[in-house]
């Protein structure tokens, strides 16, 4: 029996086709994964099922829930379906909850709005459901507000709201993308348990094939608003019929071909560094509190080395990065680049600052939209005493753009003309243009689709070969760190808990936290994806 059946669904927004002839079905107790790159129409499919498409969207086709046609329902009838028959979980737990309403009220609201039971009973049910998703009342009273919870806990509240009335169908749109890897594992377990115990159908949207591999019974691969391939998970993953699916799998397990490192003497020395932050005063004239975000961290990066730094959000990675860049003073210890401090006399030390460049995560937010590419990538020139001008400047621009696989002509364009992957190439060109000794990649590939990510990783490997790069690669994504670094450091609660050669740390982790991280990371089954199939692609 089918629970949800979508047949020949097409959606257009102001005459632009968004979805083309999408058909899929979900059975009770089944997990169906919708996967594909950004813009492939995964979320639109979910919103179409909920009949919550953005204004101006027109849908055609058939959507049936347990045999009943949803497309024929009025808006008022759909309100009775949403939350009652179909529950939905969203990507961003930090913003998916109303900040001014208690979690108890928000969960109870799902029950009350459908008039399923009285106020007192609804509260009891809310209590029970929150306990079911791992938020028992003794530790998480119903009177808590969302801001008092962590991201993973908030996602549990969102799940509790979605399952409060035991819907037949649960739709989860990238439910763990914004979460840390250990939290992700817990939330995925919770979802699997709910499907198994309650017999719900789960339509799960995710771009992460490793997550799909661990969860789904059925896979639907989408691209440009159409279904490319669908079938049982095992079959699609092990023997994909379509070239696109193969390309996605290949890119997911992609391993860049990094040249051998040739370390040649210390470049960056970090000695006993601690970084404190002030917390607000407790009383008006009371003393500030302090939080130590980085605790007594020491390490060295040799010239020519590629070092990874992994850890979950809040572990101090970003704080450490800012200190390395000399943007903020440290409260204890020393950071030396080529033997000189990166921060001196109350400001970044410019003599050293030009030797270090950074590539940030967000390829959309880290460029000024009103400047042309030539100006954007020559920004680091202001760090030089005598920046190149005229023909030399043009040459430097052309060379940097060519190095990252773009055309010299691109210098005259504005940033909006480029895709996310191209923007990240421009960001790398910007970092390369003054030939820094050290580049810091701060989550530089985390926002990219898998195929683009694979290309950028290859580019980094190429550049390493050409220019003998030294870099620090900061990421929460273990599989990427594994392919692109020689040495790795694992950070937890402001401390480096383990460090060593990358392969060694990943194959035989010694610290419990490293073990937990590696165990929690979703992985593709052996033999799927990657150019080096013999290796377990983490």
């Amino acid at each position, binding site marked *: 029996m089918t629970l949800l059946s979508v047949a020949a669904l097409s959606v257009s927004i102001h005459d632009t086709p968004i979805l083309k002839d999408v058909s899929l079905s979900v059975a009770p107790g089944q997990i169906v994964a919708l996967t594909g790159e950004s813009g492939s129409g995964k979320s639109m499919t979910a919103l179409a099922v909920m009949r919550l498409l953005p204004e101006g969207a027109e849908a055609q086709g058939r959507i049936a829930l347990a045999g009943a046609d949803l497309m024929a329902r009025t808006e008022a009838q759909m309100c009775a379906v949403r939350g009652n028959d179909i529950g939905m979980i969203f990507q961003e737990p930090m913003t998916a909850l109303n900040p001014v*309403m208690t979690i108890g009220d928000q969960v109870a609201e799902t029950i009350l709005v459908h008039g399923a039971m009285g106020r007192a009973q609804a509260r009891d049910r809310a209590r029970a459901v929150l306990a079911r998703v791992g938020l028992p009342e003794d530790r998480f009273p119903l009177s808590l507000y969302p801001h008092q919870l962590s991201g993973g806990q908030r996602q549990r509240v969102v799940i509790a709201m979605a399952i409060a009335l035991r819907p037949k169908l649960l739709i989860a749109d990238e439910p763990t993308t914004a979460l840390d890897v250990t939290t992700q594992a817990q939330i995925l377990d919770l979802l699997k348990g709910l499907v198994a115990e309650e017999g719900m159908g789960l339509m799960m949207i995710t771009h992460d094939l490793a997550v799909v591999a661990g969860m789904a019974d059925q896979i639907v691969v989408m691209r440009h608003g159409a279904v490319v391939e669908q079938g049982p998970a095992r079959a699609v993953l092990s023997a994909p019929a379509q070239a696109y699916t193969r390309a996605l799998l290949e890119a997911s397990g992609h391993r860049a071909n990094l040249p051998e490192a040739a370390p040649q003497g210390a470049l960056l020395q970090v000695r006993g560094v601690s970084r404190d932050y002030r917390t607000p005063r407790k009383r008006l004239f009371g003393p500030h509190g302090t939080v130590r975000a980085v605790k007594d961290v020491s390490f060295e990066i040799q010239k020519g080395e590629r070092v990874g730094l992994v850890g979950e959000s809040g572990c101090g990675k970003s704080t450490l990065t800012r200190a390395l860049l000399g943007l903020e003073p440290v409260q204890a210890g020393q950071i030396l680049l080529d033997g000189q401090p990166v921060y001196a006399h109350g400001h970044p030390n410019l003599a050293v600052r030009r030797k270090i460049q950074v590539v940030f995560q967000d390829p959309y937010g880290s460029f000024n939209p009103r400047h042309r590419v030539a100006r954007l990538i020559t920004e680091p020139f202001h760090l030089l005493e005598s920046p190149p001008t005229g023909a030399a400047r043009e040459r430097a621009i052309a060379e940097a753009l060519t190095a990252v696989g773009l055309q010299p002509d691109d210098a005259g364009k504005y940033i909006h003309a480029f895709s996310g992957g191209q923007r990240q190439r421009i960001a790398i060109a910007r970092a390369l243009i003054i030939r820094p000794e050290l580049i810091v990649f701060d989550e530089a590939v985390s926002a990219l689709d898998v195929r683009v990510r694979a290309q950028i990783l290859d580019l980094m490997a190429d550049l390493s070969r050409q220019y003998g790069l030294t870099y620090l690669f900061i990421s929460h994504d273990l599989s990427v760190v594994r392919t692109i670094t020689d040495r790795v450091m694992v950070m937890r609660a402001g401390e480096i808990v383990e460090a060593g050669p990358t392969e060694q740390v990943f194959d035989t982790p010694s610290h419990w936290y490293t073990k937990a991280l590696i165990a929690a990371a979703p992985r593709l089954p052996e033999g799927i994806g990657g150019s080096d199939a013999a290796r377990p692609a983490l």
Partner: protein
Amino acid sequence: MVRYALNRLISLAISLLIASVAIFLVVEVAPGDPASYMLGINAQPDTVAALRTELGLDVSKPERYLTWVSGMLGGDFGTSYTYRAPVAQMIADRLWVSLPLAIYALTLSTLIAFPAGLFAASRRGRAGDMAVMGATQLGVAIPNFWFAMMLVLVFSITLRWFGAGGFPGWDAGLGAGLKALTLPAVALALPQAAILARVMRSALIDILGEDFMRTARAKGLSRRQALWRHGVRNALIPVLTIIGLQFSFLLAGAIIIEQVFFLPGLGRLVFQSITQRDLIVVESVVMLLVFAVIVVNFAVDLAYAAADPRLRTRT
């Protein structure tokens, strides 16, 4: 929450202290001698000397400050030079007009703005929204004294529903007092309502794009339910800010409207005492207005915390 309120209260006291010093310095100490300034350039030296003694200017400045502040704390604001009357009494009389007028106008403007903003936001881009936005544009653009005169023309002179001006005093009864304040309050309220409605609309539209509004819809709330239950309270913070600012403005800024309607309010008192160089009155009224602004801000801070639990833990 109690701690938050206490903290705000302490900073309120500090603000008042700083404000009193600033006002004292500006009015009494800054340029020249208040006595000769008040009497003008043709004054006789002995008249100036007499006034200096009367004003207490012959003692040291810190001493004068302390006398002034302690006087105010005890309800003694000094004696007006031009009216020869206790300033405290004069202010109290005027406050009995200005304060009810401000509250009346603010109530009216809130009552108009909230539904208008909600209505416009829920029909964004449609005819209803366009109509409300057009009306508020007009409300912002029209000068309130002209609007006040039009009100007088229509409701006093043509229809004869209200008097054209003046205030009978509260002794004449609550109804008579409110009736006399109605046209001024409407004249004051409409431009404020126009601004407030626009703020309310844009705050709500911002909220409508929030993820939690989509979550609310996914739970099965209708558009309207989602707007009411999740939108309005989240939109309150910017709206409260504007209401606070407007109240402070209405208390002292009603001067033109008070002139149009011949109302014996605070605005007129300030205006008259400035033209008559009655510095004692100016000083006291300014201090009172500063006090009002600070107290209103305190109330707005408390309202913030009531509206948004995230602010309660901050100090």
